[in-house]
């Protein structure tokens, strides 16, 4: 019995949903694999860049290692060490900051009754999160190492692996699978490169802005601002809360105002220039779709889900479209196969 297009598409969607469920259920493994793959895509872009300048094979990999080695060294010297210093200073100030905030909120308690309980639950959440991060430090280190190993293994075997995978695909699905995969890799690669560039620029802008207004630990909060931007559209709200609290406790309302102006100016720069230059140019997704996708992913997988929401959406969209197009063509194929094929072998080539 021949099944209809709707049935085939339905089975395909169910299989995809099962795959999605398994990936979600084993999310630590999924995250490591996804992280390794994303890093590989970024590194591959660099290798391609070198190859186009006739630097191939061993020299390309040595150059890449030297470049990333220098980048890591620079990051340790100019970012990590000052960051640890600022983090220590901020940790010393933290009890004072919390006390200040608490004192202010107690004064407002009669006007805004929900402010104090909200703050207390927020404080408890922050401490639980910090404790959670600390307890998962070893998992984090293992994940970083796994992601690096996966990325480098993929990079070292990029052509052979690609060929090996493609060889396993039956001839019937070959063209659609390769073109769909190429589209996914291309879009994800563009998104990663654009998002990485945007994040670096935003970290620099936040740090510069906070430093200019005399904000405590500008590099630390610059990093927070830049990294929270990885969460599309609503990331700025996550930045505003710690920035607002730190500003209020160390400089009072004037510093809160200045910090919020810095955040607003940077948001305007991001929306007006960076988003249109970098993100929208490469990834064509409606802003409303982005917000919905991010919220759903956040509900399912928390902050990590929000970060990987857009790449996951890109993959799902292209895969479903590829599946739909293929299943539609199958019906036409069946019709063609009903007719007998000719045996004439003496004709010249036409256009196909």
């Amino acid at each position, binding site marked *: 019995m021949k099944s209809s297009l709707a049935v085939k598409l339905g089975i395909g969607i169910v299989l995809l949903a099962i795959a999605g469920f398994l990936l979600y259920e084993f999310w630590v493994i999924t995250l490591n694999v996804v992280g390794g793959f994303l890093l590989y895509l970024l590194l591959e872009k660099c290798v*391609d860049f070198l190859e*186009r300048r006739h630097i*191939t*094979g*061993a020299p390309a990999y040595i150059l890449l290692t030297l470049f990333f080695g220098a980048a890591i060294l620079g990051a340790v010297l100019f970012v990590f060490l000052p960051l640890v210093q600022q983090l220590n200073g901020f940790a010393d100030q933290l009890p004072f900051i919390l006390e200040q905030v608490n004192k202010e909120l107690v004064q407002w308690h009669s006007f805004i009754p929900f402010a104090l309980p909200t703050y207390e639950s927020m404080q408890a959440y922050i401490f639980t999160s910090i404790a959670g991060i600390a307890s998962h430090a070893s998992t984090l280190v293992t994940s970083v190492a796994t992601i690096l190993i996966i990325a480098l293994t993929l990079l*070292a*075997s*990029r*052509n*052979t692996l690609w*060929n090996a995978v*493609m060889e396993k695909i039956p*001839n*019937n699905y*070959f*063209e*659609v699978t*390769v*073109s769909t995969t*190429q*589209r996914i890799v*291309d879009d994800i690669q563009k998104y990663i490169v654009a998002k990485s560039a945007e994040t670096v620029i935003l970290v620099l802008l936040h740090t510069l802005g906070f430093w200019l207004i005399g904000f405590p630990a500008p590099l630390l909060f610059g990093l927070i601002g830049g990294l929270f931007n990885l969460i599309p559209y609503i990331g700025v709200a996550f930045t505003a809360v710690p920035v607002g609290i730190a500003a209020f406790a160390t400089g009072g309302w004037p510093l809160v105002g200045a910090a919020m102006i810095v955040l607003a100016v940077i948001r305007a720069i991001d929306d007006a220039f960076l988003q249109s230059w970098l993100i929208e140019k490469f990834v064509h997704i409606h802003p409303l779709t982005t917000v919905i996708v991010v919220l759903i992913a956040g509900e399912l997988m928390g902050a990590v889900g929000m970060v990987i929401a857009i790449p996951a959406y890109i993959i799902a969209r292209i895969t479903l479209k590829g599946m739909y*197009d293929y299943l539609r*063509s199958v019906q*036409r*194929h069946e019709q*063609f*196969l009903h*007719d*007998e*094929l*000719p045996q*004439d*072998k*003496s*004709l*010249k*080539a*036409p*256009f*196909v």
Partner: protein
Amino acid sequence: MHALFEFLFERPQLTKLKDELQDTVLFKDLSRPELNKVVSHAQLRSFKKGDHIFFEGDSGQALFIVLRGSVQIVRHVAGKHVPLATLNKGTFFGELALTHDLPRSASAHVTEDALLVCLFRHDFESIVKHYPKLGTKLLTSVNQILAQRLTTSIERTVNGNHK
């Protein structure tokens, strides 16, 4: 060390077929380094006799070069398959997919076990973007062959009308 890099970073099968590729109508004007660049973007695929490579109306994404075997191009007209051409070693088909996002205008099926090299539009665009000189050479070759095929089609049409 060189063997290790050859294994890790080069395509294993296609690299052995460079001489055969150099003889094809599409790549005959390319230098060896240029051919290497194309090979790094292309894929090798084997088909059995009776296999269908693509069907009329499918979304065309790749050009196919026949390295071994033979492929028949047919058109579906009023419930019948009309043969348009039989292609052998060195020829290519599906060229419109390289430059146009159009459905396939005919079907292709294998009449003798075939070894085909596939060049996808995405890879072709990448060649044109990053190696413009090589891209121009490839496009010129495709255009020359398209012009020959157009002339053949016109002659066939004119002869058909006069009969």
